[in-house]
């Protein structure tokens, strides 16, 4: 069974990627997940410097999903390359580094640092974190900002550049087009949906940050719609995500137009989800007498439904 997929110049052994923000720096999972078996590992968003993030509570469960407002706590790019990257490289993980910035220069600087180090497979541009005031989302919610960040990083790296798009805009495909026209090799979507939950007994917001990002199965049908719209709008590959919990969900995202997918919240619920998904994907292809996973991409059948004979 051929599960290989290609994102720009990057070939992955399979389309299953651990989503940024949901898998630490990958090394935390080394004991229980075979990092080399995953298609890729997208590590937690990195700024140039360390950040402490928001005070707790940082997560709250909601129907079929969860809210988070972590606030991009992180060790900064320099400590990452010193302390985390060596183990990822040793394990043979295909490491996709999610990069953040408060200015265009910061994005470019983080990208430059990472491009100088062996073991980084691609750069995912975090222009869509809904939880911090400065950095990210103000770029990702404007077409000009999306184009500026993408071009700024494109100029300083030969690594595949993958802007991660927010769903908190009216027309996601126009942002995918802006990314494509600015030199992106692929786009990943969707980040979390800006959301809120209140404890009615205490009348307090469930998150210290008041607002947070919604993820999990609750958002899946909306994410599928957005992936399908973007697939019809751009030529570059799409890394789809939003509430994937099993192989069926992976296939749904691929039929909608994803070349690869990312799994986040489901890894919290079950860190053994990876083997289950990979085995399920294999099963599906066998059952449908297919040999290549790429034959699923965008293959949703939208032809008119046949009339049911009376």
């Amino acid at each position: 069974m051929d599960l290989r997929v290609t994102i720009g110049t990057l070939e992955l052994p399979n389309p299953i990627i651990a989503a940024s923000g949901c898998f630490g720096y990958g090394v935390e999972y080394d004991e229980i997940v075979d990092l080399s078996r995953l298609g890729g590992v997208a590590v937690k968003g990195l700024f140039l410097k360390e950040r402490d993030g928001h005070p707790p509570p940082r997560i709250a469960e909601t129907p079929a999903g969860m809210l988070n407002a972590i606030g991009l706590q992180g060790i900064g790019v320099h400590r990452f390359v010193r302390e985390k990257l060596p183990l990822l490289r040793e394990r043979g993980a295909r490491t996709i580094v999610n990069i953040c910035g408060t200015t265009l220069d910061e994005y470019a600087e983080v990208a430059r640092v990472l491009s100088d180090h062996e073991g980084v497979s691609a750069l995912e541009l975090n222009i869509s974190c809904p939880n911090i005031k400065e950095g990210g989302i103000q770029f990702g919610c404007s077409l000009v900002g999306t184009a500026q960040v993408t071009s700024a990083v494109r100029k300083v790296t030969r690594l595949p550049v993958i802007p991660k798009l927010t769903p908190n805009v009216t027309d996601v495909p126009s942002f995918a087009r802006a990314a494509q026209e600015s030199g992106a090799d692929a786009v990943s979507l969707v980040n979390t949906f800006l959301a809120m939950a209140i404890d009615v007994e205490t009348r307090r917001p469930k998150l210290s940050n008041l607002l947070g990002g919604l993820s999990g199965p609750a958002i899946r049908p909306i994410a599928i719609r957005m992936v399908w719209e973007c697939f019809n709008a751009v030529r570059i590959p799409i890394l789809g995500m939003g509430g994937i919990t099993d192989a069926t969900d992976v296939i749904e995202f691929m039929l909608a137009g994803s070349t690869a997918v990312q799994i986040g919240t489901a890894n919290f619920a079950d860190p053994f989800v990876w083997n289950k998904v990979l085995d399920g994907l294999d099963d599906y292809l066998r059952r449908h007498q297919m040999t290549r996973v790429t034959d699923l991409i965008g293959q949703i059948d939208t032809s008119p439904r046949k009339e049911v004979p009376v």
Partner: protein
Amino acid sequence: MLRNTRLSDDYNVLTLAAPQIGELTQPGQFVMVKAGVTIDSILRRPFSIFEVIRERERITAISILNKRAGTNTRALYALETGDQVACLGPLGRPFTTLSARHAWMVAGGVGLAPFATLAESLASSATPMTLFYGARRARELFYLEYFERLGARLVLATEDGSRGIRGLVTVPLEVALAELGSRDAAMIYACGPEPMLEAVATLATRYGQPSEVSVERVMGCGLGGCYSCVVPVRDAANESRFVRSCIGGPVFNGADIMWEKC
């Protein structure tokens, strides 16, 4: 799930057929547990490993102490023998048990959970121990014979005065600390509601005794992936840094936590 022992209308002990977890367990470690995914809850919940259960010298199971509060704990209270439970562990940093000091364990309510395995370990090294144990009322004090059998001295407190001292467990703790001679040394372990942990750590510092506290924070994954369960911890420069309690804890030096920022 091998056995569900309901201790009261709210508390139960679940015995889980997880000998491999039991083999590796150190006192103070936890497991991430889930009894069935529902629309309201997809995430696991952290539980201290309560007992490591042996039959004829072989470890056959572990147990967790559960208190009915929300969706997940209600489901765990209702389980029947033979039901399947997802259980990942052992996780986290354990208590330090190398100390030659008199061990004082301070438990509030369901915070008794990490002390059964700690008491076993202390008993095997013949460390003298006292359990300060507080609950709302007498019938919510559990496993007293268990700790007595291991040689622990019991100091009990109930909020309604139905057993032991009336009031919070920190009241007899402070009395005991004040009575400590200048050459006596205690190592204080605490688990319970966060205000209790803060009070214990503050008292320990005031009386010059070391403390370790086991915190309970809202936890997403238990493995360091989500960064939700953080606690403000003092760094070398005396600045606050958020540390993940799943892998940096759940046991912290009581003096290292910046309680005013919790």
